[in-house]
């Protein structure tokens, strides 16, 4: 992921439309509701980020939605073991489009020091990741950095990107079904 610029070229629209998309994108970026999938140490730092000193609410992000249906941003913070992998994938699949993934901390990004038989070596093996935040655990500053990156992404993302072939292809690589509105009736 991350080739947003390319996609924008592909889906190039008229100037007015792009402008509207910019406005909508900015609005969307200011209301990204996170789903904290916090398993271990990074979860505590995430709590600190939510706390008064760093105040994630400034970005309109204090409404945590533990239900994947309502979330826009999946924050994976902490070790994901191979046992937990399917759960994470399921949560990702349950989220409604558009959705983004922030991988917080060394464990989620790459397994960190836990290069062991039981730990998944990076969540990007099972779900697509938009932004990586290094650190073990990252400081709240870094988590906010990552969130600002996500906001950049949201701002510049064309509305139709989620229907593009590239995106479908990407999900197919991960064996994730796209939940088309037509399919969900069944």
């Amino acid at each position, binding site marked *: *992921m*991350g080739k947003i610029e390319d996609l924008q070229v592909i889906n190039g629209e008229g100037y007015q439309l792009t402008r509207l998309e910019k406005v909508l994108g900015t609005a969307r970026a200011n209301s990204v509701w996170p789903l904290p999938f916090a398993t271990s140490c990074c979860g505590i730092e995430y709590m600190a980020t939510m706390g*008064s*000193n*760093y*105040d994630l609410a*400034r970005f309109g992000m204090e409404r945590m939605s533990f239900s994947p249906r309502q979330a826009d941003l999946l924050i994976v913070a902490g070790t994901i073991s191979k046992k937990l992998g399917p759960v994470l994938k399921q949560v990702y699949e349950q989220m409604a489009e558009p959705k983004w993934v922030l991988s917080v901390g*060394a464990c989620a*990004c*790459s*397994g*960190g*020091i836990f*290069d062991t038989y039981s730990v998944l070596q*990076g969540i*990007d093996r099972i779900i697509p*990741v*938009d*932004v*990586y*935040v*290094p*650190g*073990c655990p*990252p*400081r*709240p*500053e*870094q988590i*906010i*950095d*990552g969130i*600002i*990156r996500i906001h950049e*992404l949201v701002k510049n993302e064309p509305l139709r990107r989620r229907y593009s072939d590239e995106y479908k292809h990407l999900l197919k690589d991960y064996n994730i079904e796209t939940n088309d509105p037509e399919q969900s009736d069944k």
Partner: protein
Amino acid sequence: MQSLSNKRKVVSDKPMTFMEKLYLPAIIGGMWITFKHLFRKNNTIKYPEEQRVFAPVYRGMHVLKRDEEGRENCTACGLCAVACPAEAITMVAGERKKGEEHLYREEKYAETYEINMLRCIFCGLCEEACPKEAVFLTDRIVPTEFERGTFIYGKDKLVEPVDSRIDITKRQHTGKRTEK
């Protein structure tokens, strides 16, 4: 069971008083506490605009130091790689050729020196392990990225530029830590 120490004190056996049973006094008390906070100055650091000052010994992004003459300190001894619990450091040693004395301080140097910032746990063991005062952690934070590949930091990102040195003098792991 009898007391194992003689210092025990029961802390949670106070029965509810009548006033407490009425709910309201405690509720009003609680609301008064929160109300007082309404007028208190907030403690928030507006992060991207305001930055908190990190401790001088903060373990953030690494730097490969140069000495006073601008030569790289690293001699590719590999101790940092051995000391790394996350096995995030990779290096290839190279022999210094003639005419490169202004670049490298010792006869050997690191041709490539890579830290996988996604693996790194910023424990600071590499800094301690380095006998040449070459690798240090600094109070800068590693930026976030979109791509996984960009987190393999090579010498281009790690070695400090000659013209903008990174101050690590406050770190107590530096050579200034003389004692006795």
